[in-house]
């Protein structure tokens, strides 16, 4: 069936709730309203208010209650309405979800998915355009997953729900309704911790995730070089092997992310490329990122957000080094 990302995520949620009675959804406006982006539409009617739970407006409470549910045999999917509000859940995610397996040597585990829309490029209200994935990716014990297409969203979310560890599932808001593609009606699973080679090439490797992928594709289509494109998909644990296999052949790499440059994941990826492939490199790793500024309000967003030209220039700098 042709689906956009919203429909694909809804389908994955529905399918996992049908399959496993321990799966519950909780969050602000996820029930009657079907979520502010309609991700959970129709689920309340199908599964009832005990499993599709409209909660009080409280991000620490939602994440903390979800952790308790996970301790006691449920598989909660907790929604943060926007990434910019998820910082109230950081105490729970860092101090509890991430560490419980280790601190009890595997006796208590937290199979929890913390879903949230993230990223800019939709001219949204203040605090609705955050891309702070690096905050989560630095925490041992958390997995961080970002889908880039409807099909990817279905496969990665299904895998995240079934994963035995806590997963922060970041949904690029800009991509929610950007494109439709064929998504299988039945079960569809993609492995976590595995990057996807979107397109093979010999001259240069360009990698990104989430809403950067369609921008990367547009940019790549406009250059003459043979470009290998990688969608990282799981930011933590990161599949650096696929990246290294690629850059060892191409000798050139461009990392694209919409998060600020300093301590962004581009820095980590560049460091790992140098650790594993410095002798194969023909040029420094190029980072195409947002600047280290507060995300402007909609009128100024274009000064911040990544565009095709920036990616093309990044590739050119690398090719011409």
């Amino acid at each position, binding site marked *: 069936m042709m689906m956009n990302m919203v429909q694909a995520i809804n389908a994955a949620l529905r399918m996992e709730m049908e399959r496993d009675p321990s799966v519950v959804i909780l969050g602000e406006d996820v029930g009657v309203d079907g979520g502010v982006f309609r991700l959970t539409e129709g689920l309340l009617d199908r599964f009832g208010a005990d499993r599709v739970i409209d909660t009080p407006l409280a991000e620490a409470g939602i994440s903390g209650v979800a952790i308790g549910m996970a301790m*006691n045999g449920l598989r909660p999917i907790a929604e943060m309405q926007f990434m910019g509000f998820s910082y109230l859940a950081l105490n729970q995610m860092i101090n*509890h979800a991430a560490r419980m397996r*280790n601190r009890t040597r595997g006796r208590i*585990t937290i199979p929890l998915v913390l879903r949230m829309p993230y990223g800019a490029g939709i001219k949204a209200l203040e605090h609705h355009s955050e891309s702070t994935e690096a905050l989560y990716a630095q925490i041992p014990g958390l997995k961080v997953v970002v889908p880039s297409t409807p099909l990817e969203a279905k496969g990665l979310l299904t895998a995240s729900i079934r994963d035995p560890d806590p997963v922060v599932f970041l949904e690029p808001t800009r991509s929610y309704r950007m494109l439709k593609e064929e998504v299988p009606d039945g079960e569809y699973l993609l492995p976590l911790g595995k990057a996807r080679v979107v397109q093979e090439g010999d001259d240069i490797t360009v990698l990104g995730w989430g809403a950067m992928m369609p921008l990367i594709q547009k940019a790549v289509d406009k250059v003459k070089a043979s470009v290998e494109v990688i969608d990282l998909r799981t930011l933590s644990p990161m599949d650096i092997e696929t990246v290294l296999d690629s850059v060892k052949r191409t000798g050139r790499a461009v990392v694209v992310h919409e998060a600020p440059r300093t301590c962004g994941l581009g820095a980590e990826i560049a460091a790992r490329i140098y650790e594993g492939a410095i002798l194969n490199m023909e040029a420094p790793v190029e980072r195409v990122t947002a600047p280290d500024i507060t995300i402007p309000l909609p009128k100024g967003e274009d000064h911040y957000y990544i565009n095709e030209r920036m990616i093309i220039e990044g590739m050119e700098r690398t090719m011409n080094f």
Partner: protein
Amino acid sequence: MLTDEFDPLKGEMLCVMDEEGIVDRSLMPKLSNEMLIKAYRTMVLTRLADDKAVKLQRQGKLGAYPPSRGQEASQIGPAMALKEGDWLLWAFREMGGLLWKGIPLSTLYLFWMGNELGSVYPEGSNVTPSVVPVASQIPHAVGIAYASKLRKEKIVTLAYFGDGATSEGEFHEGLNFAGVFKTPNVFVCQNNQFAISTRRERQSASPTLAQKAVSYGFPGILVDGNDIFAMFAAAKEAVDRARKGKGPTLIESYTYRMGDHTTSDDWRKYRTKEEVETWQRKDPLSRFAKYLKAEGVLSDEGEIEKEMSKVIEEAVAAAEAVPAPTRKDVFEHTYAEMPPYLKWQMGPGGERQ
């Protein structure tokens, strides 16, 4: 209902047994002699094991430790109201409740000695590990209770926390959720008058902490926390209420921390000797012993102390015999499966590179 008789908004406090061990028969909960002796033995064990932990810290055998002295009734009374299968969540100063729940003393020592194996409790014990980020276990208790309720189990979840915790956002968020979803929870606030050095009055302008329950739409009760019978009676009523599906209760245990916050603290900086001595007279253990002797339930307390000292020596030896974690131990439980990059950091075969 005790929660109707003792209104926290009027500052009323439930007391069953006075400082001389004399009980108010009209309020006295039913407890078999067997249960009374088990409670007394657990209280003695807690008192002595706690003192031992402080000594072990001074000897450098155990890390910073938060003593329980003075709060034993406050800890054990609520746990006595639980049944097998009920959940118990603790912060860090609740040794008595954990011992009652069957967590081995050696495991607790091991935790304070600094080994993660000290947070691995017997299978099915339904006790969660210590939570140091204050109040953050409260939402967990609500989630655990929600899961029990969803499966239609008759299971109750009890969470301990302190007076300082009531100032945290997660106290509010947790209790608010519990009220909304009528989860089978019992919240036990051990008001020991201090959050490290900060007095109870600095935490909240509410005359009692128990009355905060009113704003969440469920009952709260203020209880003499040094009175094992009052703590048990209040908890029993709350546990029964939760098990019947009637929702949560907040119990404020009015008690006093006789020792330091932890072994790294010095209470002389923020309170007087006279104040501490006032509370010495309210000691929960001697009060309980007076009652039991007057009732003829307890004859030889020295014998029990001797027996418990032996239990403690064995627990210390067992904890000290556990080897330190290997490099593999500290890596392999980060995720269910170790990612390749983490394996590389751990080094080949688990050995340091």
